[in-house]
């Protein structure tokens, strides 16, 4: 049951009134029952067993830890972590491992493992927080089970800390109209990001990554850049939906994204991207490792960074592509850690610490480093990734491309009465590069409505973010607000309708597989 399926809307139409009808002190039970139904609807009953195992291991591990002295807590901590990791290994990685060591064997069936890595990490963080005395153990199994299984975040996070979510679930749960309205707005924004923007970008990106050897040069470069945005809008769209759904029940989940592509450094990027996960690996892998290896001096940071990001890669799957992706980020972070003091001195010497131009340059460099890493994240195999990385600039005549861009401006099929795309395509292949001509955007399937929708949506995204920050929708005059809602909903419906033209099916969330 996807957040965008008709069944899910029926599910919400049932659970929300039930939530309101029940007394506040029993609403946790409604949410828990609904969450289990939601998870069971994936059609993989063994996932409920995985959820139960992680929930019980974490709950009793925490409970028993709370009953003993600090010095005697460690066995319970490790036992709880071991059980969580065992579930993670069995349900999430066993198939991956079999494939990794013998790609042709297909020895183990591929499990649907959606959600397991998220709630297993949540269980581990809960145990670690009790061990560190950051939180008290939760004594109520029902509240704790809801903390683990709450349906808006069970599939793809955010990975919630006990300190944030548990207190909200323990007291009387309330319904708040402003929170629900804000939640619905946020949900709609997420639907727009996912279905109208990310899936449409997928139409451009997926064919290239599916057959990378059919493309070279600018086609690959464009696909890599567009994938960066596809992934962002897909995952942040999901997060918006999750946070919006939680808002319907007056529950606040953690933010997961904060304009990550405006980060000035890779470190800054990881503070803004998939924040609940990056904070998790920082707090539960990097910090303990750094602390354990403190006698290594400065190298402890380098080693801890490499191990942390290697683990981050492996969390996404057992494959060389994820190993390379994790290590690449680890190396970026290490280099940045080593280089930052010199950069600061250089900027101070040049008096450009507060220069916007220097800031923009940093954003540009960081964005490109991140995009380079995304190649390994998205490619099907390591050889595909290496092919892409090695052919990004193949056959590109930068000067001629620049001239062509000046002549035609941006490629805007919206104005194709003025700019002839066939002429552009032909000119591109003759003058600038022969590597862009077969890019999916230049196929007739994508021209027209889809490109127009992408461009208009880009304006909506830019304006929506800008206006939303300065003037929240709640403060708009009612007429303007309602007209905005109606037009926005209409646009989403339209984007959805033309996306699902023959051969352009809706795609699952990219992070669903993790």
């Amino acid at each position, binding site marked *: 049951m996807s957040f965008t399926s*008709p069944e899910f809307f029926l599910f919400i139409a049932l659970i*929300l*009134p039930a939530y*309101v009808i029940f007394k506040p002190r029993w609403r946790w039970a409604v949410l828990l029952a609904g969450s289990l139904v939601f998870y069971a609807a994936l059609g993989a009953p063994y996932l409920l067993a995985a959820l139960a195992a992680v929930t019980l291991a974490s709950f009793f591990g925490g409970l028993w830890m709370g009953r003993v002295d600090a010095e005697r807590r460690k066995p319970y901590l490790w036992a709880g972590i071991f059980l969580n990791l065992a579930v993670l290994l069995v349900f999430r990685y066993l198939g991956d491992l079999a494939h990794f060591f013998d790609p042709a064997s297909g020895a183990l069936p591929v499990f649907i493992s959606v959600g397991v890595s998220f709630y297993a990490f949540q269980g581990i963080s809960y145990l670690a927080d009790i061990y560190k005395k950051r939180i008290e153990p939760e004594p109520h199994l029902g509240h704790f089970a809801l903390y683990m299984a709450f349906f808006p975040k069970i599939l793809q996070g955010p990975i919630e800390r006990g300190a944030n979510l548990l207190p909200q679930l323990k007291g009387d749960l309330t*319904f*708040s*109209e402003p929170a*629900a*309205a804000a939640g*619905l707005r946020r949900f709609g924004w997420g639907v727009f990001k996912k279905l109208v923007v990310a899936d449409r970008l997928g139409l451009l990106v997926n064919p290239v990554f599916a057959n990378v050897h059919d493309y070279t040069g600018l086609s690959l470069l464009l696909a890599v850049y567009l994938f960066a945005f596809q992934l962002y809008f897909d995952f942040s769209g999901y997060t918006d939906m999750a946070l919006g759904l939680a808002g319907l029940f007056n529950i606040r989940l953690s933010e997961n994204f904060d304009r990550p592509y405006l980060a000035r450094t890779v470190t800054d990027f990881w503070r803004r991207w998939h924040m609940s996960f990056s904070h998790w690996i920082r707090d539960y892998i990097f910090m303990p490792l750094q602390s354990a290896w403190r006698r290594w001096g400065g190298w402890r940071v380098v080693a801890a960074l490499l191990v942390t990001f290697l683990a981050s890669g492996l969390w996404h799957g057992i494959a060389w592509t994820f190993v390379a992706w994790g290590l690449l980020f680890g190396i970026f972070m290490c280099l940045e850690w080593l280089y930052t003091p010199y950069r600061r001195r250089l900027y101070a010497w040049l008096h450009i610490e507060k220069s916007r131009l220097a800031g923009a340059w940093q954003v540009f460099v960081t964005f490109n480093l991140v995009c380079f890493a995304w190649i390994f994240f998205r490619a099907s195999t390591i050889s595909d990734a290496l092919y892409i990385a090695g052919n990004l600039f193949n056959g590109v005549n930068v000067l001629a491309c620049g001239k062509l861009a000046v002549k035609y401006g941006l490629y805007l*099929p*919206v*104005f*194709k*009465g003025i700019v002839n*795309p066939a002429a552009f395509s032909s000119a591109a292949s003759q003058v600038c590069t022969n590597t862009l001509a077969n890019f999916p955007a230049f196929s*007739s399937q994508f*021209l*027209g*409505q889809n490109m*127009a929708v992408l461009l208009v949506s880009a304006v909506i995204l830019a304006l929506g973010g800008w206006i939303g920050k300065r003037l929240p929708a709640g403060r708009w005059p009612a007429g303007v607000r*309602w007209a905005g*809602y*109606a037009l926005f*909903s*209409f646009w989403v*419906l*339209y984007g959805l*309708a*033309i996306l*699902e*033209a*023959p051969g352009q099916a809706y795609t699952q969330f990219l992070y669903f597989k993790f």
Partner: protein
Amino acid sequence: MRDFTRFFAKVALLGLILVVGLMFVFFVLLPPDYSDTFAIMGRKMAYLQNAEGPKIVLMGGSNVLVGVDSPLLEQRTGRKVANIAIQASIPLEMQINQAEPYLKPGDLVVISAEYNYYVMPDGNPAIVARQLEAYTPGWFDLAPADIARIPDILKDMFQAKMARLMERGFYPATDLGRTFSPYDSLPAALLDQFDAQGDYIAALDKPPRSIVTKMFLGDNQIDPRIFDIFNDIDRRVRARGAVAVLTFPSGRQSNCSLSGPAFLAITAQLQEKVTMPFVGTPASYCFPDNLFVDTEYHLDRQGRQLRTEQMLRDLAPYLK
């Protein structure tokens, strides 16, 4: 609870605004496009309804729309001929739903489905949407499978209408924005491009276009549902005192050579499991390649006459 009631009322109001807005777009801003191929359906149905005496009703896909000379059939048989076929993606179940109320004892229903129909008898929601937009009474004649796909049909209708809106507003004077057209080979037809009986006659004198010869069905297996569909049609036609017969679509000689065994295999299965009689053979409806205008099934003027003559010979036993 009051909070929730107010919230629910607001969500319902937004839903209402959307529905009203969509209806405004559907019916006011973008009224049905009565200028394309599907708009002919109303006139076809009127012809069927008003035909007096024993008549012939032609059903099937565009092989019937383009490839049968109904006036010639009328002239030779002395019966009125209503050609209610439009496109292969409009299922036969929908066509029989449309024709059934007007069938009378002594009528002859002639069905000629394209070969790909035997593999995939379901309608194409986008095409059905197109027909429903141009011919609203068609909503009452939907095939059972299409009733289950009404959301898809509405979505495709919305998509087609928005395509027209985008064409007007965003990029006028271009057809690049169309995400689909009724069919590639025939241009969106005007009503005067059909004759009174419902045949499409604007492409008859077009020069033949190069067509790649490929196996009609390949390895695809016949869909077993079609036996039930044909038997149901036969039962309903008989219940009206009329007779239904199956005949074969026109095929290019080069493809008949290639796909002949597949045609015979289909015919053998149908003859075994379908109660409706067959007229002719697949081979008797194979014509020289140069008599086809654009696709496998669309005959030119000369080809259409040859095919109609063949039909007259094959149907003779049923026209006495």
